């Protein structure tokens, strides 16, 4: 008697709730759908962060390196073969002034051995999102500043930690480091000189003579601007380099960057 009741209890306590639970699980409820949407949203936010902080940088770095290599290759094949005049090899003469590029067009490469043995990124004209927030470009020339080969300031901007983060390790530059600019005409060598931290409004850094309004430029410099600190745009970190020497394309790539400048 007692045993039968126990069995009946077992039947009720095991089978019945299981059937009830299954029917409840199968029902689509507002709270259930809302919960699933919220969890999906959370996963998407995490995926976005992964894309922004890692995946997009990997893709951008590769694509920008490819664009830069393609430019080098294009210039190398378009250039005349080694200079027939031996005198020219000894004295490269005055540097060729880069012609004004079209907006949004990559017209030069930046090569900085300190930022990586294979660091070569394209430089495009303009500092809008179309250039800077671009997986294939990422580095822009302030259009109102001067160009390589002429007196004044060749000012560039790029990201610190997004879209390839070309200037991620800009703070590691050491006085005397070489900063190379490659164009169709040849290679311009700048020597890194100093670093400065300014507010976002610190436009003095891109003047022909930085922080000296109204002063006429006598020497050529390069200015690299990016954000500081990492993953923030609270301040700007600025690196200055002074023009050192000029290597015409006809004479072949300079020895220091021969491996990265020569494209197979």
């Amino acid at each position: 008697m007692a045993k039968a009741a126990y069995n009946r209890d077992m039947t009720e306590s095991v089978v019945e709730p299981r059937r009830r639970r299954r029917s409840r699980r199968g029902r689509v409820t507002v709270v259930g759908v809302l919960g699933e949407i919220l969890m999906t949203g959370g996963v998407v936010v995490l995926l976005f962060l992964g894309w922004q902080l890692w995946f997009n940088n990997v893709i951008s770095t590769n694509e920008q390196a490819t664009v830069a290599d393609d430019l080098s290759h294009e210039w190398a094949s378009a250039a005349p073969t080694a200079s027939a005049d031996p005198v020219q090899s000894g004295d490269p003469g005055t540097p060729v002034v880069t012609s004004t590029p079209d907006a949004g067009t990559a017209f030069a490469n930046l090569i900085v051995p300190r930022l990586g043995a294979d660091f070569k990124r394209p430089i495009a004209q303009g500092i809008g999102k179309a250039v800077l927030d671009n997986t294939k470009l990422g580095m822009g020339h302030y259009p109102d500043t001067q160009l390589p080969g002429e007196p004044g300031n060749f000012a560039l901007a790029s990201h610190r930690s997004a879209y390839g983060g070309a200037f991620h390790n800009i703070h590691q530059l050491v006085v005397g480091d070489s900063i190379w600019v490659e164009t169709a005409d040849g290679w311009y060598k700048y020597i890194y000189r100093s670093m400065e931290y300014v507010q976002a409004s610190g436009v003095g850094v891109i003047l022909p003579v930085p922080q000296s309004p109204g002063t006429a430029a006598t020497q050529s410099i390069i200015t690299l601007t990016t954000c500081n600190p990492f993953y923030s745009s609270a301040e700007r970190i600025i690196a200055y380099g002074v023009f050192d020497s000029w290597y015409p394309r006809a004479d072949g790539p300079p020895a220091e960057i021969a491996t990265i400048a020569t494209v197979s």
Partner: protein
Amino acid sequence: MYLALWRLLPGAPWLRALQLVVLAALVLTALVLWVFPVIDHLTAPQDVTVE
């Protein structure tokens, strides 16, 4: 939501799971190619220029 999707898919459980994996891959691709770049441009920009 996902249960409804599971019921909607035809075939054996392993086939449904395979379809879910393919669908997830498609969604991820769409996010990376189109959605994330747009969101990135709409959210607070990381300004690197002086102006």
